[in-house]
């Protein structure tokens, strides 16, 4: 949800279809609601409703259609356009959406994206702006679980927000995470990261130092997505990659039906061939966990 031109369709296209940020410039305004379904991590399927933000549609959502639009919502992602000319009316719209959400989907999670953050160049200014939005939005958000992210389709911030959103949606994530940590230890890797296969969003990882590593993984994800596009262009779809040298080895491999795995080993004593064998051995175990969330809940 969000005003027309805020960037909803752009963000959806960049994450779920292989648009580049550049490509989004050709997008037109969304007519009414665009429904799409994304198969994500095994039996989790996301129904995404991209609600066109022009006035005539918004009126409709908040009146005749409110039960249809705001009923059965698991997650509301509200996109604030940083460049809005009328801050107050933006907040009013947000209030109205939350009101309706409170009526029809009280348990929904809410994520607010302060979008097009790339328009602010200075890092301190960026942080201040996000903090200002966060304070204002928090004040208006009562009775909901809510998080604020500064995002842009021109860098990894949009992936970061979506990784977080999706992380919260996967029911047996804690179990997957625990098993991934075990695997990391067993195979004597220094880091293991799980990516969703289609979007390459970071699903979970084994590193404790959250912010620093996550940024790195986002950039890895970005690099691989770009590279996949290059491979497509020469009609040779990307499958896997391995880099080995005297100091480290890196594996990027398809893992389960719905995931890719990244394994980094920095111990020169660990033979790459062994690491590879371990990845293969772990695969069948994780298939149960990641592709079928009911087995080990």
């Amino acid at each position, binding site marked *: 949800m969000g005003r027309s031109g805020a960037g909803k369709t752009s963000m959806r296209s960049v994450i779920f279809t292989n648009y580049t940020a550049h490509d989004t410039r050709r997008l037109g305004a969304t007519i009414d609601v665009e429904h799409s379904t994304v198969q994500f991590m095994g039996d989790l399927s996301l129904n995404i409703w991209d609600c066109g933000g022009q006035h005539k549609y918004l009126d409709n959502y908040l009146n005749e259609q409110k039960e249809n639009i705001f009923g059965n919502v698991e997650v509301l992602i509200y996109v604030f356009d940083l460049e809005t000319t009328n801050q107050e009316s933006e907040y009013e719209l947000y209030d109205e959406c939350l009101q309706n959400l409170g009526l029809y989907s009280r348990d929904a999670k809410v994520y607010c994206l302060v979008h097009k953050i790339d328009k602010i160049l200075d890092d301190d200014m960026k942080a201040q702006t996000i903090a200002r939005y966060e304070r204002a939005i928090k004040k208006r958000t009562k009775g909901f679980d809510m998080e604020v992210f500064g995002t842009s389709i021109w860098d990894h911030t949009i992936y970061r927000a979506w990784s977080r959103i999706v992380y919260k949606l996967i029911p047996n994530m804690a179990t997957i995470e625990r098993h991934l940590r075990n695997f990391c230890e067993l195979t004597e890797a220094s880091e293991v990261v799980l990516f969703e296969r289609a979007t390459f969003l970071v699903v979970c990882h084994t590193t404790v130092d959250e912010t620093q590593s996550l940024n790195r993984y986002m950039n890895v994800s970005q690099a691989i997505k770009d590279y996949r596009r290059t491979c497509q262009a020469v009609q040779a779809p990307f499958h896997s990659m391995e880099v080995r040298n005297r100091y480290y080895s890196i594996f990027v491999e398809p893992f389960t039906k719905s995931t890719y795995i*990244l394994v980094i080993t920095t111990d020169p004593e660990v033979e790459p061939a062994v690491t590879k064998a371990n990845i293969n051995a772990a695969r069948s175990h994780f298939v149960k966990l990641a592709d079928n969330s009911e087995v080990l809940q």
Partner: protein
Amino acid sequence: MSDTDLTQGSQLSEPLADRRILVMGMPRSGKTCIMQLIFEDKNPYDLMDQLIPPTMVRTAYDMISGITVYDFPGIEDLADVGGPDPEIFVGPNTSLVYVIDAQNEAGKSLAELLALIRVALAANPALPVNVFIHKIDGLSEELKMETQQGIQQRVLKNMGFESLDSSNVQFFLTTVFTETIREAMSRVSLRMVPRCDYLESLLNSFCSKSSLDKVFLLDVRSKIYLATDSSPTDPQLYQFACKTIDTIGDISMLCAGLGPERDDEVVMQRTVVTMDTNMRLFMYQVNLELSLLCLGPSAVVKQQSLLEFNAAKVAKAIRQILQ
């Protein structure tokens, strides 16, 4: 990564390196952009945005295996100081690159080229002359061909009138927005690498012994190739190879905090990329700067140990040649 130490303003009076590529052309034809793209790893979009001051002195860039590339001031500026010294063209390991802006009327540039060729061939009749028809990104496929034909015909005809030998003149279509520019620079340097014929036959035999489709010996930093087997180079495949090197560099940097080229040590880097088709890419580090990049069917690269064994032997031979 800072590459500034690689470039130094070199005074016109300083002696030039033995193996050298001289880059010349009219002011604003794109010479400095080309240098910055290749040697300073700049992004083409950033290059378009930045204001490059005109080159006042020639700038030297060190390429692999002892080749130095000189970015000269625009021909018009050079004329002010009495034209180029004919001495710079002398020597068996000298090559001339002349850049022509394809998005502008070429008449003046072609006249200057002819004047330059006159001086250069008088000093060194065997000098390779490489004409880069540059900035073709704005042109349609059709217009590209037309422009190339037009320029090619005029250059060869003019040289014919003056009975200048044109057998060492080559033409390339280039733009900083695709790998065409790296490929053209590769083709220019290929002929200047020590014992290039031997290198080529070495790679040919590596290809056939290991059933590979294509092998490049390239400088990982600039992505210029010094040698390749004699099968034709598919520009798309080369572009793909360049992108692979970039990706591997990025991912290594992100995952391990250091790229493949640790400045002081050969880390024995090997990389395998597998495709969902019957294709694989294999990279094998030769020395600090150079790597072998091989493309072949999966079945072959699957015999990884044999391939690595062969690559090790080839790498050793290459190190000996280039020493």
